[in-house]
């Protein structure tokens, strides 16, 4: 690349070359992210959904546990904005409740499990040797244990307790594959000169991992996190379907979709609103993911220009 390309002067305050303003990486990444309109839109959508999920229930007089026996299976109206179910439950109230559950489960599981894979994978890959062998032994062990079975058995103990335990359960069985990928990348990055240079400067291991390893693996980590959001929401559905996750009368987007699909063509409102919320959430998260990835990657051309 030529040393002076016209697109780069954006980052600098003065053009005389003597301004002496140095922007740290954090500032640069924030700026580049905010310059990506789609990513900002995604951020707004996720924010809006979160607000809606918690404020929404107060906007209607119906609660997700109430039955309106005058309106069974009625289409959306001014009384019931999103219509009602077979037993007269308000679909708007249900969707809001479901959104609350699913957003929190999806986002938390994605953050925790990706964080775990990134941390554990890079430690194993960077340190190598015995640490690596022990960690990979645990990873392989977790991979061969049928996770569903364990969750089902454990469900005896967590049933009736906080559904947040579900987040822990889903996280524990969701980080291994990504962590193997991260470990592989870390092993090849470890051999590069800039990591070696940092080591010879006496930079401590944790700083090397945070400063050099993770940013260089950001793309793969962000993609994994983005996929995990949708995956966790759907994974929770599977458990609920088997009777171990969110249980009636409580609802989640997953259970709503599962129940509504059968009637998708005849009573579309049973499923459409929950489905749309899920699609919108996942889409918004992937916009954010793309934006972050471009912000981290200096080679990307998209976030360079104003």
């Amino acid at each position: 690349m030529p040393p002076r390309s016209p697109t780069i002067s954006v980052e600098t305050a003065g053009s005389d070359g003597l301004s002496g303003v140095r922007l740290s990486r954090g500032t640069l990444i924030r700026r580049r992210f905010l310059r990506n309109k789609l990513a900002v839109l995604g951020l707004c959508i996720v924010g809006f959904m979160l607000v809606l999920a918690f404020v929404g229930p107060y906007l209607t007089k119906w609660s997700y546990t109430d039955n309106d026996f005058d309106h069974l299976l009625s289409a959306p109206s001014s009384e019931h904005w999103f219509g009602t179910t077979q037993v007269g439950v308000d679909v708007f109230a249900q969707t809001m409740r479901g959104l609350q559950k699913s957003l929190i489960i999806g986002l938390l599981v994605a953050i925790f499990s990706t964080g775990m894979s990134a941390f554990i994978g890079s430690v194993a890959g960077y340190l190598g040797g015995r640490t690596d062998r022990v960690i990979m032994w645990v990873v392989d062990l977790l991979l061969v244990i049928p996770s569903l079975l364990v969750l089902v058995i454990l469900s005896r103990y967590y049933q009736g307790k906080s559904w947040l335990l579900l987040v822990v359960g889903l996280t524990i069985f969701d980080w291994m594959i990504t962590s193997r990928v991260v470990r592989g990348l870390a092993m090849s990055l470890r051999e590069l000169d800039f990591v070696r240079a940092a080591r010879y400067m006496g930079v401590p291991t944790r700083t090397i991992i945070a400063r050099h390893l993770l940013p260089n693996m950001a793309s793969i980590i962000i993609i994994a996190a983005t996929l995990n959001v949708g995956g966790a929401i759907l994974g929770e559905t599977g458990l609920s379907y088997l009777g171990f996750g969110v249980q009636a009368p409580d609802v989640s987007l997953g259970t709503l979709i599962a129940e509504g699909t059968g009637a998708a063509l005849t009573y579309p409102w049973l499923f459409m609103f929950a489905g749309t919320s899920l699609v919108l959430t996942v889409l918004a998260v992937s916009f954010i993911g793309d934006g972050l990835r471009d912000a981290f990657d200096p080679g990307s051309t998209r976030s360079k220009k104003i």
Partner: protein
Amino acid sequence: MSITGVRKNLIEIRDLSVTFPSEAGTVRAVRNVSLDIRAGEVLGIVGESGSGKTVMSLSMIGLLAESATITGSINFNGVNLLSLDDNAMSKHRGKDIAMVFQDPLSALNPVHTIGRQIAEALHIHSDISKEAALQRAIELLEIVGIPRPAERAQSYPHEFSGGMRQRVMIALAIANQPKVILADEPTTALDVTVQAQILELLKTARDMTGAAVVLVTHDLGVVAGLADRVAIMYGGKVVEIGNVDDVYASPAMPYTIGLLRSIPRIDGAESSRLTSIDGAPPSPVALPPGCAFAPRCPAAAPRCDASVPELVPISSTRMTACLRQSEIAGLHSSGKMFVEGPRHVASQSTGEAVALEVRSLKKTFPLMKGSVLRRRAGSVFAVDGVDLTLRAGHSLALVGESGCGKTTTLLEILNMVAPEAGTIAVLGHNVAELSKMQRLEMRRDLQIVFQDPFASLDPRLPIGDAIAEPLDNFDVPKAEQNQRVMELLGLVGLQRDHASRYPNEFSGGQRQRIAIARALALNPKVIALDEPVSALDVSVRAGVLNLLAELQEKLNLSYLFVSHDLAVVQHVADDIAVMYLGGIVESGPVHEVFASPQHPYTQALLSAVPIPDPKVERVRKRIILQGELPSPANPPTGCRFHTRCHVRLTLSPEHADKCVNERPELTSRRSGRVACHAPLN
């Protein structure tokens, strides 16, 4: 040999342009090049990376990527090669035009024996029986100097060393008696002593087949001894072409002038003053509107930016592309063309202070065998008894061929832990006795600059943060860090507002300056330089070397300079230590070692370095070493060098036996030290 204008043209390239589409825009790799290749001549094509030299040679043999757009014509025997489709082109490839690639490992098929691959080349172009083809393959292997050819024909490529593989490639190239042999950087991946062997072999190949050889390279030295004519390429165009003697003696294009004066020469003529050319070669995506060299040219006039200069004849045998052609000679002789860098003065601090001392350092790597029960089957003696002394304020060069253990030595020193055997003392402190805190403190004083500036900077860390990394590590306050980063950027010749840019926005030379700034951040006393210029383009090397010399003088630094390039060493170092197969064979002041080497290996190494001067190069006596570096897992007995030593062959039998049985100690002799039973001079 040189002035034979009567030779007929074999290949006529007319108005050739090659472009590639890319994300960043159209890559104009070759722009309107016209060139003749004459029967039986050696034509050197010299250019830096991105100058279009490789693309041009590939277009002659029809091996460009599908996406390339090619215009113009390449006439060979009355046929326009560009009009042929792939099948028709295959009739010429290998038969009329043969190619020797840069990397012989990827150019040979790893799953077929060498003999079969050569036989296959013969099969394709002639009616020859299987047995006869194999027989001929063995003959060819013998011609290119493969020992025990009948046996080696059964071997696979991985069983050959790099130099041997390149010999096989040449055997493949001459198999069908081609008219033209294209050699694309044939020696770049090889060590200097092996390079000398291969260049010698190319000469033989030319004499045997009578083929024209097109030698594509970035190294002006390689061309000097071998070529009849030389074409200099820059920014996709040929900017100067002529007989090799004329071009070297009186270069006419400012780029050629700068290039010839920016490369360090081992023979000391005009030594230690290097001209540096500002800036970096242009990207083929964003070429300047006028002359491609104008932005870097000290003689550029406004009209140079207006139109692209064409090649015009300046004598019957020479052409050059420069608008100010008539004035250049005058400007050059009046010394107004390029500013010379500082003369490297041997450091004056004569004190006895020692920056770095290494005594009988050893490092072995285990060779493991077995998959379930792994056991040690042997050892690789990477470093086996190395002694080094780096005087404070001086530069010590550690030289040797690849695989001799010089990088391992360097890494052992930088690790700052107790070595396997021997001692390492940094600034008078034995590293084995340091506590963890002391070791961290010592790291302030010892910094490193790596070879590859593309790998040594984190691509995702802005360079300001990269330079501040060592400061951050020693808890320097943020405000002070900022100030220091700005100071350092100025010191290495970069602009302050570069600080918030990412490494991918910089050229190789600039990146190396950033790496140097990072190494200087903590005001170290010793800097280890691991081949700091070998990955850079020729025209930017001088700038970095001059910077290093200037910094040393200004900041009183001590350099431990690891390199395989003796010409560069001669330019920057005060002392030299020559390494062979894990041990030091000779050490002493640079000028004395270069003037009268005592160890036969040093002598051979020095004689193998090409000199960018055809007159000197043609008459120079070369000592061509036999074979290649033995494996450090199974080093020879006695003197490690005895298997390749040319001096031992002249010794009486009892003396020669001593070399085989007894390892010579490094002993003081004259002003240096040498490990040889029969030292020279």
